[in-house]
């Protein structure tokens, strides 16, 4: 029987009352949480927003979120065949879903316009 990772994900834009949505991702050993998030966008729900650039090389440092209450890189934490709660970083301005404003303040558009 195939195993399933149940991702429970914080949804909503900044200023909105967030909701939690549940997604079922087929689990293969060795996958990362980022693999699970990319699976959700490509097959279940493309409106899910989260940051990443380098895809699992842990170079861009963009995919930092809160996983089961602990801050971590989605590309470094293994996906597991159980319920996993994914939330945006609490200490950064929220943008949408799991995406937060993580750029230094002087590297943002609203700094100049």
């Amino acid at each position, binding site marked *: 029987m195939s195993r399933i990772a149940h991702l429970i994900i914080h949804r909503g834009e900044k200023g909105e009352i967030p909701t939690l949505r549940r997604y079922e991702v087929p689990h293969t050993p060795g*996958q990362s949480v980022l693999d699970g998030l990319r699976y959700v966008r490509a097959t279940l729900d493309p409106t899910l927003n989260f940051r990443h650039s*380098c895809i699992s090389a842990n170079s*861009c440092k*963009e995919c930092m979120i809160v996983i089961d209450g602990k801050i971590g890189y989605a590309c470094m934490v293994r996906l597991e065949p159980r319920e996993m709660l994914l939330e945006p970083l609490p200490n950064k301005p929220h943008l949408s879903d799991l*995406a937060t404003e993580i750029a230094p303040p002087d590297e*943002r558009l*609203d700094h100049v316009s």
Partner: protein
Amino acid sequence: MKTRAKTADLNADVLVAGSGAAGMAAALAAAERGVRVILADRSLIGRGGATVMAQMTVAAALGEEVPDHWEAHLADTMAAGRGLCEADLAALVCEEGPRDIRQLDEWNIGWARRSDGRLRQVHAPGHDRPRCVYVDFLATGPAVSKTLRARLQRQQRITRIGDLYITDVVVRDGTACGALGFSVADGRAVAIAASAVVLATGGLTRLYGRNSASANMTGNGHALALQAGAELMDMEFVQFFPIGHLAPRLVGMDPIMWDPFRYKLGGRLLNSEKREFLNDYGVEERGRYVATRDHATHSILKEVEAGRGSPAGGVYLSFQHVPENKLREAFGPVIDRLARNGIDLTKMPVEVAPIAHYHMGGVRVDPTMETRVPNLFAAGELVAGANGANRLSGNAITEALVFGRRAGEAAATRAKTAASAVPNEIASPEQLEPLCASTGDPAHNLAGMILELQGLVADVAGPSRNEKGLEQGLLKLAQMRVAIGEVPPGRPGPYNLVRVDWFDLRSMLIVAEVIMRSACLRTESRGAHQRDDFPLLDNSWAQHQIVSLRDGALAFERAPVANGEVAKVSS
């Protein structure tokens, strides 16, 4: 004029799009010449491109290990390019590279050194001597990015803006005068007026399912340049890195990580019979690392095709003959990272397979990095010509630094002599409308379509191509173009990836078509372009293919290669 109210209007003397090594070098060089620069990146500044992912080698004739001369580096670069290098551009990389590498050393990048203070240089495949500097461990790219970022932060004349996606280069009277885009962070439309524009958006390896670069390498700079009126060149030449990690699954490590291991420890490429096989294809390795990327890729694919591949569809790379203390001495903490992934190199081989890594083709420029559109420059991986049909290991970062600096210098000079001041507003409300309008939800899952496109491009325009596959691919691209429609879906908003996907797909579909049609026209095999229906090199094809837009349609022509005498273009 409601549209205008929602738009952020910016202006600068020089706009640089993309903040890998080329973009950062361009911004620094321009600012040092006294002009105001905006450095924009669709992701975070200095983090989202390919530079930050570079694992090890940066080639330059520094002569630290053994005497060297830039002309020897040039000879190796030209030989690796299989007859398609533009000599002037390749010479710039080789002659000026040492200066930029020394500059980074002065800025304390931390190149690996011997105890006597000399820089360490490794001997990479295709080079005639040890020529490649690096930062331990597997940290070259992050060190280059960090060093350049630190310089940017001290430069008051540079405004850095992340999460800014450029969608159009604005051309007025045939001359580039700025760009349009939108803020990924808040969804606002952005218009940037500039006297000169430098595109440094990197390559296009995201077109391939298995690739070693970031999700940002979508070829959007190629599409921007093409639509602004510039020419593209040699677009069929996509480099596959032969030994990309395949299995077992790793997290938090770059798939090209085995390159440094091979530089330092040799390693053995084995087939399913656990036999070294490169010799069967004319490359004798004997535990050393000498096969160039095109030859190694070709040999691995042939071995898999012959049924002697590994279970996951690649071949084995083994360091089992290397004692544990040697492994630890060479890679210290990386050995622990591997252990956390369940890999013990003393006990097991890993599986590797070719992976899309770099693009030799790109925007056609002159030695000042200007395109044929006045005031539109390009730099870095985006530029064609220096690497011909196959890039030598270690030339990418050097190219990014040299071409970036030169593009920044030339753009600043142009901005200072510009006939008119930077206009306040460069775009009409009509031009901005697609960026501001709210439309319906997309008819398709665009993230899913990107995945589908990646599979298609890998299938038909991967390391092995033929006319039938390419023609089928082109048909499928046409269907996908219709499917995504003419306007971006949804509405502008904070971090809306559906809109980002749409703009990415728009570029990716254009660039995929250019690659497939170029690959279809080139009826020979050369370097990274291998046709199974035309398996031999054809000397009559020792020519570039040039692509441009003519009345909205792609036009293809051939141009001779200037690979003879190197003109004195260097200052």
